[in-house]
């Protein structure tokens, strides 16, 4: 194909170049398809790379260092108060992003995926109009929608670039370190970014309408985090809503209404983190047979097929857990199905991690889901206060839990709160996916002393022979 043509044809059109989109494009190209990827942002990577996972984790790595430096004072090692060079920090963050970005760009080229900058709008089931692009129209045999999601704004207060009322993108841009920051929403985005800003020196307040933080996550996993956040945040107001939100030149006036909290306060900045919505509204889906639910998530089957036979959808736009790992697998599945392979999304344990301090990570069936769905389970809890390694790190508040079938001991899910939970959970994913039994996990020797032992020790609880916890049977 030659650039500059008004109208082009392609085998597979991928709309959106985030982790779902580029995974689909790369896999499809590897399978011999003619692939074109369209996105308003010319370089692949999406929200994950530019305004999500990667920049936030770059900052959270530094936050953890800052907290650790303070924490080891109790262990007899004292650091001076950290000096934060905001410009250098941003340069570092951008360097991380650009090295990843360059890699994805060259991978696209090596695979022969054509990249077009522009916004795609469906004209029918086999044609898109391209806005702000060099090519005006693209005809395709099949398409994968991977347009992702975007932050939801506070009602009546749209986000403005550079404004004091920010979404996660604005917060990650790190214009300054505000003295006071209000975070609206007690989900993972709010808590992660609150952790960053608090480490950098902001007074962070969180308001959440629900009566708990991180709804949907097992309570016993949230509890140690809640304790920690109480100590680093200026305030956490549950069952509290924001009744007024007005940006002024030198701050944001906020009216808080809730249990034990009726006040009008001024914050330097406000982060609105009340959720994300699918970016499907202006795609022209009405010109296709694609169906969405009431919230705009595209309905798909386990082969990523939409109601339109030649259009597939992956990632956040298709709903489910809004996670890059899930999007990426879905992208591969879509590509394989399009290439005629009998592929399907049959993941049983999607691991999710919240990179707070301590981290929370889980995969597979949670205790809450088991209760909601009336699935009979046994919960094996191994508190880290019994772990030698946790004590050496001052991380004894952690908890490892395994959700198993009460009869067979087959592992259905794993949940962890504590340091390094992000890596520990993967053993759980493998266990669930392989159909492993608690006995398998218990009998697999783990290195000592490590936090990973908490998983085998939790599994031993099923057999009633945990070394460091006395089970009822033994007592």
């Amino acid at each position, binding site marked *: 194909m030659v650039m500059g043509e008004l109208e082009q044809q392609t085998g597979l059109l991928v709309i959106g170049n985030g982790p779902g989109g580029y995974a689909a494009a790369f896999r499809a190209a590897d399978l011999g398809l003619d692939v074109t990827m369209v996105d308003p942002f010319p370089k692949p990577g999406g929200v994950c790379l530019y305004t999500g996972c990667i920049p936030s984790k770059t900052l959270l790595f530094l936050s953890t260092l800052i907290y650790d430096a303070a924490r080891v004072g109790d262990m007899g090692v004292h650091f001076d108060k950290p000096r934060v060079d905001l410009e250098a920090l941003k340069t570092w963050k951008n360097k991380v992003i650009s090295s990843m970005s360059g890699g994805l760009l060259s991978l696209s080229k090596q695979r022969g995926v054509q990249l077009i900058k522009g916004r795609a709008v469906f004209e029918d089931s086999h044609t898109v109009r391209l806005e702000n692009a060099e090519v005006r129209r693209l005809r395709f045999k099949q398409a994968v929608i991977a347009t992702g999601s975007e932050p*939801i704004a506070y009602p009546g207060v749209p986000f403005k670039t550079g404004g004091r009322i920010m979404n996660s993108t604005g917060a990650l841009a790190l214009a300054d370190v505000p003295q006071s920051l209000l975070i609206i*929403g*007690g*989900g*993972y*985005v709010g808590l992660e970014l609150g952790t960053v800003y608090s480490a950098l020196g902001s007074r962070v307040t969180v308001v959440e*309408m629900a009566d708990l933080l*991180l*709804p*949907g*996550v097992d309570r016993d996993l949230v509890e140690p985090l809640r304790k920690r956040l109480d100590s680093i945040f200026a305030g956490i107001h549950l069952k509290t809503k924001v009744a007024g939100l007005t940006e002024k030149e030198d701050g944001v006036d906020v009216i808080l209404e809730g249990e034990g909290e009726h006040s009008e306060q001024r914050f330097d900045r406000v982060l609105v*983190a*009340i*959720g*994300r*919505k699918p970016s499907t509204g202006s795609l022209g889906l009405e010109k296709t047979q694609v*169906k969405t*639910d*009431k*919230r705009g*998530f595209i*309905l*798909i*089957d*386990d082969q990523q097929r939409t*109601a339109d036979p030649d259009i597939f959808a992956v990632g956040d736009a*298709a*709903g*489910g*857990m*809004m996670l890059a790992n899930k999007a990426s697998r879905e992208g591969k599945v879509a590509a394989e199905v399009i290439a005629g392979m*009998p*592929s*399907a*999304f*049959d*993941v*049983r344990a999607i691991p*999710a991690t919240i990179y707070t301090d301590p981290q929370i990570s889980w995969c597979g*069936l949670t205790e809450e*889901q088991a209760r909601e*769905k*009336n*699935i*009979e389970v046994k919960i094996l809890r191994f508190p880290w206060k019994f772990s030698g390694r946790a004590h050496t790190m001052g991380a004894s508040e952690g908890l490892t839990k395994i959700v198993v*079938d009460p*009869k*067979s*001991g*087959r592992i*259905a899910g794993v949940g962890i709160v504590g340091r390094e939970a992000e890596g520990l959970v993967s053993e759980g994913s493998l266990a669930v*996916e*392989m*159909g492993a*039994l608690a*006995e398998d996990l218990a009998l697999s020797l783990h290195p000592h002393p490590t936090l990973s032992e908490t998983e085998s020790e939790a599994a031993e609880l099923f057999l009633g022979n945990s070394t460091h916890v006395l089970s009822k049977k033994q007592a």
Partner: protein
Amino acid sequence: MSKSFTLPDLGEGIHEAEVLAIHVVEGRQVKEGDVILEVETDKAAVEIPSPYTGEVGQVLVKTGDLVKVGDSMIVFENGAGEEAGPGPSDKQIEKPSREEQQKPIPAADGKEKGPVPASPATRRLARELGVDLHQVPPTGPEGLVTAEDVRSFAAKAKEVATVPQVSLPGETSMAIGTPELPDFKQWGEVERRPFRSIRRATARQMITAWSQIPHVTSQDWADITKLEAFRKKHKDEIKAAGGRLTLTVFGLKAAATALKVYPMFNSSLDLAAQEIVVKKYFHIGVAVDTEDGLIVPVIRDVDRKSIKELSIELNDCVQRTRSRKIGLDALQGGTFTITNAGAMGGGFFTPIINFPQVAILGFGHGRMQPYVVTRDDGSYDIVPRLMMPVVLCFDHRVVDGADSIRFMKVLIETLQDPEELLISMT
């Protein structure tokens, strides 16, 4: 909550269906039991009732689609539960079709069981081999299905499977070994028509029968002069009772008589078990020519029914078959088949056995023929008689030519002498 309705298992050996009609639109309220779809399988048209009461959220299929068992067809909205507040921590976003597909099978005690334990690689293998993990007997600890389990299940399924699976597990394998076709357009205009449902099922069945069964055909004449006189005499009386007295009705009765005398013609060969399965029931299929192709409904227990009963039942059965209202059950379980081409004309022909049966009986068109009779005094005379060609195709693995001659003799004698049939008239 949304619920997705998938194409249910429609019975033995049916893997897919073509959507004939959709009786609902999105937004329509339906009650459990309302007919929502009409599909056509390899064997018959089937009306599908709604399993739920609720609103039709989405129709995922359109007329003409080929759907496989388990494919989502319609998504039902059952009201509440959709409006939960959005947010990144909201992990239970509804995705009806996928969720339903991966829904665990509820156990007998009402508690939900998890999905079939199997590693991701095993699950992929199962998809590739077209194996449903729920059906695989597990050998791993606590019910774990291993890759080896899946492989041996697939191999066994191939070995044991009946008709369509044997050599033709699906559409694609129909093409195996078929030479590439030339471009017919180079010699003139052509039209390409879909090769589907009954046409395709017939093709599969014929390939199976033709490639597996060594066919031999016996041919003879039956003198049906008396029988025809008998038929004419009684046909109004039968008509009044709601039946149709056709030659096929007598054929059914005569075949049942002959099958009882020679039960090997009422058997199936089980190669895997190295046994011949002799059936003690006499369910005879009747080939019916319909607008959509050949369908073979089965008349059960022919030996226990009178001519009158058979006339009524066969007539009803043919009507329902032609209007595609016949149930799948009525197309299964046949032990022998009759194909009567005579009404349309035609003489001798060689029908193909309806696998896994062992024989098929065919009637040609009865014509007045000069027939040599021997008088009492030993001299000959030529008289006009109504003569009908009768053919019997049989599986030479199970029966021999001599058997077929004997079988035909009983059959033809029965047809020539309606006295015996007369006894069972009412």
